[in-house]
């Protein structure tokens, strides 16, 4: 297989990498770029642990080829905090204990951020449907929904 040279932007930084044609964006992020925040849960787009945004759209990076990243803008969990200052979602997940093992957390944070950018004031039902593709086997989801809502309230200035 002939490797492919890809020029992309990740968390605002111009980035270049070489990948195999059948290599997923998730594998590129984790194995070639040392961005291990996105996790591989199922590898088939069911669990959402590998969530990133591509040109602002929330996607599963396991269902994107690395080659497809050419010329697009990718945002990962690593770009969420501003230096040492955590994003309100990250802070509220800690404050509300909205995680246990933490494997699903990066994906849920990326997904929740995408939701609040589109809808700053969602109902609980809207949050639950939006996050239906992010599976968590520890928390029972309730604390996750509450943490998203309290972060949303802070972001609205309430």
């Amino acid at each position, binding site marked *: *297989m002939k490797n492919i040279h890809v020029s992309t932007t990740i968390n605002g930084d111009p980035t270049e990498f070489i990948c195999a044609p059948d290599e997923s964006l998730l594998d590129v992020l984790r194995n070639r770029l040392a961005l291990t925040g996105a996790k591989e849960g199922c590898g088939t787009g069911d669990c959402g642990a590998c969530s990133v945004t*591509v040109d602002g*759209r929330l996607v*599963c990076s396991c269902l*994107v*080829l690395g080659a497809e990243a050419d010329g697009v803008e990718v945002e990962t969990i690593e770009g969420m905090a501003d230096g040492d200052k955590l994003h309100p979602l990250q802070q509220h997940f800690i404050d509300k204990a909205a995680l246990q093992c933490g494997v699903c957390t990066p994906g849920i944070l990326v997904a929740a951020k995408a939701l609040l950018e589109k809808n700053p004031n969602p109902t609980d039902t809207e949050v639950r449907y939006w996050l239906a*593709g992010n599976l968590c086997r520890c928390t029972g989801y309730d604390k996750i929904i509450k943490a998203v809502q309290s972060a949303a309230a802070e972001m609205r200035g309430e």
Partner: protein
Amino acid sequence: MRYEKPENVADAVKLLHAETGVARILAGGTDVLVQLKAGMVEPDLIVDIKDLDGIKDITPEDGGYRIGAAVSGARLGEHAGVTALWPGVVEGFELIGSTQVQGRATMVGNLCNGSPAADSVPGLIAANAVARIAGPDGTRDCAVIDIPVSPGKISLAKGEFITSVFLPKRPERASDAYLRFIPRTEMDIAVAAAGVSLELDADGTCVAACVALGAVAPTVLLVDAAADCIIGTKLDDASLKAMASACSDVCNPIDDRRGTIEFRTQTAGVLAKRAALIAYERAGGRT
């Protein structure tokens, strides 16, 4: 495996036509990449069509809309024009997968995957949607109903691929709806499904109807006998009951742990009835 991203349709056709091994089109990738990982398909060539002109666009045309083959569910759902004109088509497609899957999945991909349970296909067939196909002999149009052949098989020839789907214009008092049954509320595959499109006259009588059923036969079914039961009526109880039974009559589903033959057959009729009532209300009728 080679990965190619051609810049025009002619080059895409040439690549697909010349490939002697297995070729796959990549737009949203939510089926192809899963199949790739599961080892269900080992393509020699992947043709990424996302650089083709207009492939990601929704374009008004003759009072309807042309939807490019790489338009994601998220983009389609945000389009006020298509959502207003063909709400049943949009709601069918939006039922597929998670937010993440909707960020990538395409309606044309759902059609070309060839599943009898594809949630966007009954709505497209009830809408009389037409696929535009590029191929070695040029461009041709084909009714969406003639695309699926059997589970996993479609009617396209070697070197051909769908570049867009066209949703036609419709009169003011017309609408559509799609319903499916799944054992949970999200992230599942239809056990039975129905898409209904209706046109009404000024006093609320149904003057044209299309009823399509999903997941109850090897391909999505267009049931003219069911449509005939409600054409000329205001969707009274007796007509709806006749329509539901006409739907159940043509069902030929599989029997599996997700739904028995009996359950799928009955449910298809019930869903068609409910979808017809939603479409009727959207079109401005009152039962």
